[in-house]
């Protein structure tokens, strides 16, 4: 009982982080398109379209994690997104690009590279833990 309550708290924290990050970016898609463009990985044509789509995907997946509806799908997408983001940030760093991810709006604007990495890895670990706990629960119900 206590264990499942703790996992629910982790659900709310992790889901809430993605909802917050999604809402911030959804409110200013132009800035987010510029942030994606700064990675110099995609042409503007795709950056601008992703800037409209990704925030909503984050919000929907965050809600899925909080309300445990389409839960595993939400967790899988969020893990893929954060892994992709970590890889893109490392690649940008390796190419000497000074990028602002804009992931959390103005709050993250002046974060250093290690700070970005620490936050992203912590979220990634949280998602993996939730995934493992959900698997264990599913097995115990069999």
């Amino acid at each position, binding site marked *: 009982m206590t264990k499942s309550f703790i996992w629910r708290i982790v659900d709310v924290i992790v889901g809430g982080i993605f909802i917050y990050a999604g809402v911030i970016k959804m409110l200013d898609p*132009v800035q987010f398109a510029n942030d994606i*463009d*700064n990675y110099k990985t995609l042409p503007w*044509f795709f950056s601008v379209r992703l800037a409209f789509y990704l925030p909503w995907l984050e919000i929907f997946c965050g809600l899925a994690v909080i309300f445990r509806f389409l839960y595993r*799908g939400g967790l*899988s997408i969020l893990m893929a997104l954060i892994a992709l983001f970590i890889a893109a940030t490392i690649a940008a760093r390796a190419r000497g690009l000074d990028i602002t991810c804009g992931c959390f709006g103005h709050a993250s604007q002046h974060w250093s590279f290690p700070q970005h990495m620490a936050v992203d890895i912590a979220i990634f670990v949280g998602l993996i833990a939730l995934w493992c706990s959900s698997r264990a629960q599913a097995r115990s119900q069999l």
Partner: protein
Amino acid sequence: MKLRAVREGLLLIALACLPAIGEGIYFRDKISWQSSIPASELVTVDQARAWGDGAIWVDARPDEEFARDHVPGAFSLNEDRWNELLPQFLPNWSPEKKVVVYCSAESCNAARDVAKRLRDDAQLRDVFVLQGGWEGWVKKNR
């Protein structure tokens, strides 16, 4: 379990499309879909040169690149030393002048970012980004 996660993930991916399309329609006139800089904010080398003394040139590249070479009469104004360089630049600006900002090449973002800050932070009007950047200028002046 994996199949279920994939199914749920695909559903979330599809669901997120709907508000993203709606937001895209809402922003359709407020964002440039084909280029990171709207066509109305771009200026070619020939157009900018035709403005003659009516144009004021701003070099958004790092100090060392500016020191190596720059458009004759250009002012250095990059984001690294923004607070220091902006007060040196502003006395040279007057309302009837058009500001032409450039960085290294077509693909760099520094000119776009400096132009945006000149419009938003310094409240300047008629701020343009040079198409092709410094490379474009050099090609035309060989």
